[in-house]
């Protein structure tokens, strides 16, 4: 092998492996996005548990994070990303794509309703966030593998 071909083989390998090295695989991207969604839920949960004071601004910021995630999730489950990177995605996502898309739409809808509600106290926060939490739970049950 000449030096040039060696070099090009190495660079080809690098390009092929780049997504993994850079954390750009859909599996990693959706995992990270999911972490953001969870992080955004935390302050709301703490308010509902009365471990922290109600703050309308913080709640709305969390809702916005959810809305952005809801818009982005759909594209992060392309064909070919069914396995690898310890993904917890269930095969059902790809075998029942319509059902999965409907579940995502349900999440987006619940988030939009929460934003529109603009909760100003604990009670209305509970009413706004409750349906979103229900979507999280339902979708995890149907489309996430349990790592018990």
């Amino acid at each position, binding site marked *: 092998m000449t030096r040039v071909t060696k070099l090009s083989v190495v660079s080809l390998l690098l390009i092929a492996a780049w997504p993994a090295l850079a954390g750009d695989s859909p599996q990693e991207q959706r995992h990270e996005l999911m972490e953001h969604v*969870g992080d955004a*839920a*935390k302050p709301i949960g703490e308010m509902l548990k009365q*471990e922290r004071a109600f703050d309308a601004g913080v709640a709305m910021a969390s809702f916005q994070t959810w809305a952005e995630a809801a818009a982005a999730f759909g594209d992060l489950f392309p064909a070919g990303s069914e396995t690898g990177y310890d993904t917890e995605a269930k095969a059902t996502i790809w075998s029942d794509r319509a059902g999965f898309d409907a579940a995502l739409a349900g999440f987006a809808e619940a988030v939009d309703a929460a934003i529109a509600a603009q909760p100003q106290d604990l009670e209305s926060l509970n009413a706004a966030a409750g349906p979103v939490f229900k979507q*999280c*739970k339902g979708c995890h049950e149907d489309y*996430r593998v*349990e790592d*018990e």
Partner: protein
Amino acid sequence: MRRAPAWPLLALLVLAAVFVWLTRPQPLRPSDLPVHKPDPANGELVFHAGGCASCHGERLEGGLELETPYGTFRMPNISPEAATGIGGWSTLEFVNAVVRGVAPDGRHYYPAFPYPSYARMALRDAIDLKAYIDTLEPVVASNGRHDLAFPWNIRRGVGLWKRRYVSPDPVFGTDATDAVVERGRYLVEGVGHCGECHTPRDGFGGLDTSRWLGGGPSPEGEGRVPNITPGAAELGSWSKRDIVYYLQSGFTPDFDTVGGSMVEVQENLSRLPADELAAIAAYLKAISPVAARGD
């Protein structure tokens, strides 16, 4: 012709008699039942705390199969239907089934039915539970028999197992002066039967109470059930409020959602009043920590 000596046969007969005596079902007698006006509203709480519908089905029609290392258990119909359900049972028959694991025909139930925990139930709660089930819709449904491997298929042998593993005594001797913890003990050790999954089992399928609620392999074969004692790697740091919120909402303190078999358990328990869930949390914080082991 010389007669064969009789003593081996005699010894065998004596052994058989001892086995029959040791394994005899020990049901309650009519006089053991308290005088009690059944309260179906309390029975409904007992029903959800016990998670009856998780195994017996939404309409209590049975049919669900439980795969275990001993074989396949098939859940019976416990709707109040006379022919295929339990509609024809007397209160005494029902209470004996639940707290003694004895069927109306006098045979033992297998402990896939968690009567080793229900043995700690108050008889009044069992009576109320029947009163609640009697208000539900009767469903006609016959279900298959269990399909177990030898020697587990010898039902009478369950009597020996019961002698070793079933007792109405508390597992964790709580300070009975703390009424909240004591109530939690009743819910967790008794009707809630949390230990049936969260405590590892020994070689005979009995709970290893030295690691009470310390987690272990899933009784359904796959995965692990977490340690829920104060010694648990992750759950040990949950506050009482975290536990109550988790049981109400299904969300962990990290805002991950409940998973696996616990989904239905959580949904059942979410129907209990908050003070009952607070009692569960108080008990879980009071018990001895079991060292984390791969949970």
